């Protein structure tokens, strides 16, 4: 292909976007609608995911020791827990600190409750706070910590707590939200393609004539295909850029209004973290849909 022919294809593709007027508007619009829905749901899924990750990471195992455990045993257990491969972090909260924390938690109103307790009569046991690498392993790690009791004649661990029941429920919910979200996004992607191919099917009648004439004067299939390819790419690009513009602007507004509202406990994922990927995805998808739709619509007319 010569350069001037290539320039011609680009020019013809661009021209025909304008020549086909309302059909182009319809195609661009259906790309915008599809991508916008897709974008909104992707953002929703991303935020639910971030929220779920946040909730997951707050899963924590607490192991309470009996009050008569010696320091040697305590250090032994500390090392045992620390050497488990699922565990990311172990913190010892000594009983004195535990009492202080508890006092702070109760505040002025509960001051009387802990009146009279001191270093020697402290009812709070030594406590290990255990963080696991993969939140879903919490129940398993908890049972492993409980099993440490078997190494000693007198069980040093009084109780292991990881929010039994609640944690399992949380995992179930976050998993469900993720799966539904991804299924939704995939379904919407397919719907977008269907919408575009339908729009393009309408233009076929006009195109049939055009392609017939091109073939008659001796145009090769490649030559015929190029301007359509360019046209599809342009339509996809226009649709996706408008979508990205609208979506990002609105989302940014939303993020800052959520940030400004101190009564809301949740925080949205800022655009700077996901903008590049999401923008790239939407533009790429727009291009793909546009090109795919346009070339599909002429394919059957290229057969002799």
């Amino acid at each position, binding site marked *: 292909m010569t350069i001037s022919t290539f320039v011609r294809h680009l020019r013809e593709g661009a021209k025909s976007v304008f020549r086909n007027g309302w059909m182009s508007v319809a195609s661009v619009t259906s790309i915008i609608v599809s991508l916008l829905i897709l974008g909104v749901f992707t953002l929703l899924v991303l935020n639910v995911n971030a929220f779920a990750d946040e909730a997951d990471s707050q899963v924590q195992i607490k192991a309470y020791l009996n009050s008569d455990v010696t320091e040697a045993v305590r250090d032994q257990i500390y090392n045992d827990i620390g050497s488990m491969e699922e565990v990311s972090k172990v913190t010892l909260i000594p009983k004195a600190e535990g009492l202080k924390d508890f006092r702070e938690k109760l505040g002025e109103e509960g001051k009387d409750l802990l009146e009279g307790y001191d270093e020697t009569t402290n009812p709070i046991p030594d406590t290990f706070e255990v963080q696991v690498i993969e939140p879903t392993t919490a129940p398993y790690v908890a049972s492993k910590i409980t099993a440490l009791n078997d190494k000693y004649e007198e069980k040093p661990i009084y109780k292991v707590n990881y929010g039994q029941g609640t944690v399992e429920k949380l995992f179930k919910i976050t998993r469900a939200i993720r799966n539904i979200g991804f299924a939704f996004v995939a379904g919407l992607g397919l719907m977008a393609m269907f919408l575009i191919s339908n729009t393009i099917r309408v233009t076929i009648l006009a195109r049939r004539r055009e392609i*017939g004439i*091109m*073939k*008659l004067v001796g145009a090769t299939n490649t030559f015929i295909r190029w301007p359509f390819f360019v046209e599809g790419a342009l339509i996809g690009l226009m649709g996706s850029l408008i979508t990205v513009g609208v979506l990002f602007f609105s989302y940014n507004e939303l993020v800052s209004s959520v940030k400004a509202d101190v009564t809301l406990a949740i925080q949205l994922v800022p655009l700077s973290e996901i903008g590049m990927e999401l923008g790239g995805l939407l533009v790429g998808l727009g291009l793909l849909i546009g090109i795919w739709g346009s070339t599909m619509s002429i394919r059957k007319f290229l057969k002799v």
Partner: protein
Amino acid sequence: MLKRAIYRDGIIDLGRDQVIEMQDVWKTYPNGTHALKGVSVKIDRNEFVYLVGPSGAGKSTFMKLIYREEVPTKGQISVNGFNIGKLKPRKIPYVRRNIGVIFQDFRLLPKLSAYENVAFALEVIEAPKKVIKKRVMEVLDLVGLKNKANRDPSQLSGGEQQRVAIARAIVNNPSVIIADEPTGNLDPETSWGIMQLLDEINFRGTTIVMATHNKEIVNTMRKRVIAIEHGNIVRDQLRGEYGYDY
């Protein structure tokens, strides 16, 4: 007859007289219609041939086979030295560049100007821009539309639109022009203008095969007449007449 070496797409045609040759050509459509039943004919370089016969006799099939819109069910067709029936799909565009086709309904691209419609046939073969401009204006001048080059088909009369179509058909200097009732949509006066144009193109060395129902034209502008009925050639006269009453 002209005896000269013609180089076209790498095929050297040394002094071959026949531009079109059909040998026992049959065409049966998938619905079982026998459009052509063993047609054999030779059309020489520089000839002007009228194709006459009732509707549905096989005239259109005859012409579609020449520009490879259809392939024969049986038999051989050669056009410009190419065996049309055995042509690889990849090669079809190159064969068509040597055949100009004109239709009753003009078949112009409605959103392109007269100039662009004609230039299109040259862009397709990737001719340089300068050549395109020069050649398009040349043929628009020949068909008498130099001053209306920038008009859209909708701004042109039927006769003018057909002139644009003719300009497009000849812009590549084809050796053959296939015209399927080129005057079918035009009033008598305009039709004569088109016929004079075709006659001049033929005079300049292009073979013309034209299907028509216009008795007056065939009987006045005497040329070779091939009559087709029920898929067979029933008459072939060098300076023939229309021969039908409709």
